[in-house]
């Protein structure tokens, strides 16, 4: 990185003046991903905690505030943070849409399985109280929350990467000669 923050700011200001009164495209002016040691280190330190918080909110929704929807979003934030710190493209290279779809399907499948499982014990759909284990109702509700969390986090991760991929490559295609600056 050759640009110091001050230079970058001055450049942005110049760009702002140059673009006065005309249309500009933020993605085309500067690379969407800038490697920063501070952000990378911060994300590396706090990502495990955020993921733990997400899973906690997912599981503990039965006993305190929270649940699958909130916990799923918090868990998906981990992947979003990794995307910000290390660039979206390298992370997206590890993710396949089919895997995300399978994950989301698995979450919904867990919900349905718990719902239909009650038939095996002579109940009706979603009749959790019949599961013949200790606190069967509570555990099945937590399993359902986990399924919801998996669905939500999978969808949000997919949305983030589907919207985010192509930004870097679009920038490269626009200005191929700035490659060595980054």
């Amino acid at each position, binding site marked *: 990185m050759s640009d110091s923050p001050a230079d970058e700011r001055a450049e942005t200001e110049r760009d702002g003046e140059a673009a006065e009164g005309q249309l500009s495209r933020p993605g085309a002016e500067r690379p969407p991903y800038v490697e920063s040691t501070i952000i990378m280190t911060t994300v590396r330190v706090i990502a495990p905690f955020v993921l733990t918080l997400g899973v906690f909110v997912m599981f503990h929704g*039965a006993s305190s505030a*929270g649940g699958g929807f909130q916990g799923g979003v918090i868990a998906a934030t981990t992947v979003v943070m990794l995307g910000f710190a290390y660039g979206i493209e390298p992370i997206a290279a590890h993710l396949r849409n089919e895997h995300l779809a399978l994950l*989301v399907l698995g979450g919904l499948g867990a919900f349905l399985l718990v719902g239909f499982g009650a038939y095996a014990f002579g109940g009706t759909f979603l009749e959790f109280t019949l599961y013949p284990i200790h606190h069967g109702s509570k555990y099945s509700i937590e399993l359902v929350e986990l399924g919801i969390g998996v669905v939500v986090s999978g969808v949000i991760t997919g949305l983030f990467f589907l919207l985010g991929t192509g930004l870097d490559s679009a920038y490269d295609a626009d200005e191929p000669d700035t490659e060595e600056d980054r």
Partner: protein
Amino acid sequence: MSADLLVIAVLLFMLGSALAAALLRDVVTSIVAFAGYSFGAAVLWAVLRAPDVALTEAAVGAGITTVLFLLTIARTTVSRSERFEGISLRSALAVVAIVVTVGATVPALPAMGAAGTPILDGDVSQYYLDNAYDETGVTNVVTAILVGYRGFDTLGEAAVVFAAGIAMLLVLRQEEFV
């Protein structure tokens, strides 16, 4: 009293960020102001003792939505001509009309926490509060209702999210963004 002051401060903050989000010309600034508005709403829910809603608002409204908006805006063109949006007479009239219409209904609402409102007096809320733990084994009544009593609705919600995700994969994967 101090809680009232906090509520007033949060409401003023929300009003300011809402105006900033609506009036600022730079879309990125506007998105950040909108995230501030969501954050104010989350604080308000927490103060009003609705932690589940507060958690959702903070995670979805202030967090993920902002990120997705920013990603989307990075692909679009933005006008940088002025700092603030110009306000046309017609849109100002529309805003005033909406504010007056909605504001006229506010006095019809019962006071916050007033006794005798259906939510406090009704049989349904009391039934859930009395029986939720015994019937579902879950101490958080919100979760008990969401998954235990209203499990079918929640299954529908999960199915909607699932369908949206699959549709998004199908639609967005096909085309190259320009």
